[in-house]
């Protein structure tokens, strides 16, 4: 049996080229990203467009409605200009998480470099769009209104730190949830094999970890969808700061 973290190994399939002497390889991570993107494209483009939607078509429409409602309720109507951005992030994280639950597949979001890239992309989008749209007034995001002047420097420093810590908690949350879930799943599934090797008594004992594994799989499906939702709604909340910087 492989150890529980064997599933996170990066395997290089072939090398695409070199940048600065470092090989740029096509890995299993890249493969599953492409599978996720292909799945999203198939869902959104490949389904038939009928007036009475079929199962897949209503799934595509539901995902649109869901993200649009989320964005409107957190960032207002003006936030809708970021709809393609938020929708892409939500669908990508959702597909990558759910595809990762299929046995023998690879979960892209269990590597912090992926979640950190996504979070930093959101972070810089907020900063660049905030300054582009509001100019210096974007700095109001660090200055809460109604604060006495003598504690303002301290509060502003804390707000700056709070702002800078966002990409960290944004990325670590998704990464840690997916990593912990997949390790737990693997450990409990490993108990089944260990107990089963003990003979008849072990077979009876193995019922417990087996039922736990089934339950955990259901829980992981919930976590996969929930974390995609949390990642997307935090993106909306951060984008709201760029659009309406005053507290």
């Amino acid at each position, binding site marked *: 049996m492989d150890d529980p973290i064997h599933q996170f190994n990066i395997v290089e399939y072939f090398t695409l080229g070199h940048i600065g002497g470092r090989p740029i390889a096509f890995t299993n991570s890249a493969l599953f990203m492409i599978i996720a993107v292909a799945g999203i494209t198939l869902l959104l483009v490949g389904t038939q467009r009928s007036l009475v939607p079929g199962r897949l078509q209503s799934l595509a429409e539901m995902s649109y409605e869901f993200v649009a409602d989320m964005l409107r309720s957190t960032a207002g109507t003006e936030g809708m200009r970021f709809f393609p951005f938020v929708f892409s992030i939500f669908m990508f994280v959702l597909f990558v998480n759910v595809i990762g639950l299929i046995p023998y597949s690879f979960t892209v979001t269990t590597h912090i470099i992926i979640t950190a890239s996504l979070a930093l992309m959101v972070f810089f989008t907020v900063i660049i769009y905030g300054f582009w749209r509001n100019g210096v007034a974007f700095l109001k995001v660090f200055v809460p209104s109604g604060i006495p002047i003598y504690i303002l420097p301290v509060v502003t420093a804390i707000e700056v730190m709070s702002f*800078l*810590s966002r990409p960290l*908690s944004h990325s670590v949350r998704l990464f840690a949830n997916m990593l912990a879930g997949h390790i737990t799943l693997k450990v409990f599934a490993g108990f089944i094999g260990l107990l089963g090797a003990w003979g008849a008594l072990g077979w009876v004992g193995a019922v417990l970890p087996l039922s736990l594994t089934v339950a955990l799989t259901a829980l992981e499906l919930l976590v996969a969808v929930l974390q995609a939702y949390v990642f997307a709604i*935090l993106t909306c909340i951060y984008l709201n700061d760029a659009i*309406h910087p005053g507290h």
Partner: protein
Amino acid sequence: MSGFARGMRLSAELVGGVVIGFVFGWLFDRWLGTSPWGLIVFLLLGFAAGVLNVMRSAGVVQESRPDGRERKS
């Protein structure tokens, strides 16, 4: 949201603030050679920022939005 997910989320917020405070304090000290004062000040600021993050995402501190509705998270 389940209790576990909520706990993960809030702890990530707190740890995020403290870690950023540590990193900035450490870099500040390395840059200006003020060890250990930069680390002390930035760690405290980072901890305060982490607590602020937690209180915000737990909804203890309400933030009003421009149209007067409360932000939901």
